[in-house]
């Protein structure tokens, strides 16, 4: 059993004084942690490739006289969380290098069935509507860019269908902030709608006809 709560596991003290033991303890820690909690992108790999990946992570952290591990500083947070992010990031980079990453979110708009026309009233108006939609997308892009970063992020996370809990986690806010973030999101949407309205696109009127 490894201690996932400590902010300073013992092997960190050994990196200079007894690197052999430090390495071995770190190996145990890594193997146990990642076998118990394989990062999401690693789960799609077979058992053998997962073992390979763990080896890559160990090598990444211990090469050049434990270069990566020595960058860790104790700020009272669990070392395991810090290390898990390093491992997770390494897995992502590795899969990206191999060209086999399956992104959760596609960047290719053509592959996403955003049938915005269906959301707008009178979709039978066809080409005219489509042309207006392209303009509207450009305006949305421009207007979002003028909001503060917090609002931009909230709006984009909402568009990506993050739940309030996921937004709170992603922003590293205290866990009891779900209601606050829902309220903030509502306020950001209000700001966005107002700016769009100033540009002549009153979305609230779209569905009222």
């Amino acid at each position, binding site marked *: *059993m490894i201690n*996932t709560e400590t902010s300073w596991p013992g092997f960190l003290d050994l990196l200079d004084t007894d*690197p*052999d033991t430090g*390495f071995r303890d770190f*190996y145990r820690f890594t*193997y*146990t942690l990642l076998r118990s*909690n394989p990062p*999401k992108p690693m789960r799609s790999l077979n*058992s*053998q490739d997962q*073992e390979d990946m763990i*080896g890559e992570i*160990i*090598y990444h952290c211990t090469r050049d006289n434990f270069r990566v591990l020595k*960058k860790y*500083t104790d*700020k009272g*947070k*669990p070392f*395991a*969380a*810090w290390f*898990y*992010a*390093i491992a*997770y*990031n390494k897995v992502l980079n590795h899969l990206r290098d*191999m*060209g086999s990453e399956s*992104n959760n*979110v596609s*960047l290719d708009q053509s592959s*996403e069935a*955003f049938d*915005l026309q269906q*959301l707008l009233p009178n979709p039978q108006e066809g080409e005219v509507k489509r042309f207006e939609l392209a303009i509207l*997308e450009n305006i*949305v*892009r421009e207007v*979002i860019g003028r909001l503060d*970063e917090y609002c931009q*992020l909230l*709006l*984009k*996370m*909402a*568009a*990506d269908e*993050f739940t309030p809990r996921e937004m709170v*986690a*992603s922003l*590293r806010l205290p866990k009891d902030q779900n209601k606050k973030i829902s309220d903030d999101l509502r306020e950001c*949407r209000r700001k966005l*709608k107002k700016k769009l309205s100033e540009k002549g696109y009153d*979305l*609230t009127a*779209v*569905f009222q006809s």
Partner: protein
Amino acid sequence: MDKRSEDHERKVDELLNRLIKSSRSEMSTEFVRPGEQVIAAYVSGSATEQEKSIIQVAMIGSPAFRAEIRDMVIESETIISISDVSLPDYDAVSVPDRVGFLKRRGGNSVSGNGDISFMDKLAKIIRSRFYVPAVAVAAILVLLIYGDPFLLHDRSHIDSTDLILVQHEVPKEMLIPVSTRAAATSSRMRIFDSAEKAALHEIRYLITWQQGDFSIGEQRPQDTSSAPCKDINIQLATTSGQQLREFVFHLPVTDSLAESPLMVWALALPSRNLYNAPLLTDTAKIIWPGHSDSIGCLTITRAVAGGYQSLASWSFDLH
């Protein structure tokens, strides 16, 4: 707010979400991925305000990165420790070279250098990432210039390639063994960013650790091909010319990559010394270096689009 108003607001929000989503593609080109230390600090909750800002700006720029951060944070908050995870054999083995471990980690890279003929013969010198004693490098260069260093000029083999081998010691952690149960079926299609990584990955399938010693595991047969092949003979010999082993590699000649550079790699154990050389003709001879190295592995790599892959490998025991 009555039900009708709620329904209306929901529809508008949905439209807004779709517009935001469909307008994001051009923004993704601005994305610069933050460094791993910044990401780790953010995920673990120990980031400075500046680091938080870096991450959140990056999250604005990339939907994929947003999803990654979300998953990292949520997963890292739910880490559990399971006591019955079985470690591979490696864990039960004492590290054989405790002092060397530290020394290797503190080592510097050296580059190969030499005369014109040396460079002509080598298609590529793989730079060692680890310490190679300067004396040894100097000795190799002197021998290359003035002599027949490894008795490589075996005139009985007219077509043979004179192999000049670059040597370095492979760190133990690079040889963390791969489970042998899948060795026979594992694909060699994986592409690596260096030929050495491709070679070591393949070699890891061939070795095991038992009772603190290396041993060789199952052979990995060459992937079969129905295409016409030419045979490449690789001989393993002593410094006095005595042949120890011979390996035959069947290179598909209709393969679009048939002309891509091949490299042969040999790992000697237990020393973990790694040797390599370009494979330029149909016959090659490798002078087995060590008296104490009784087992070893051989693999062939080639350059492919986007990197390097291994093609075949053998393990052998000279006892």
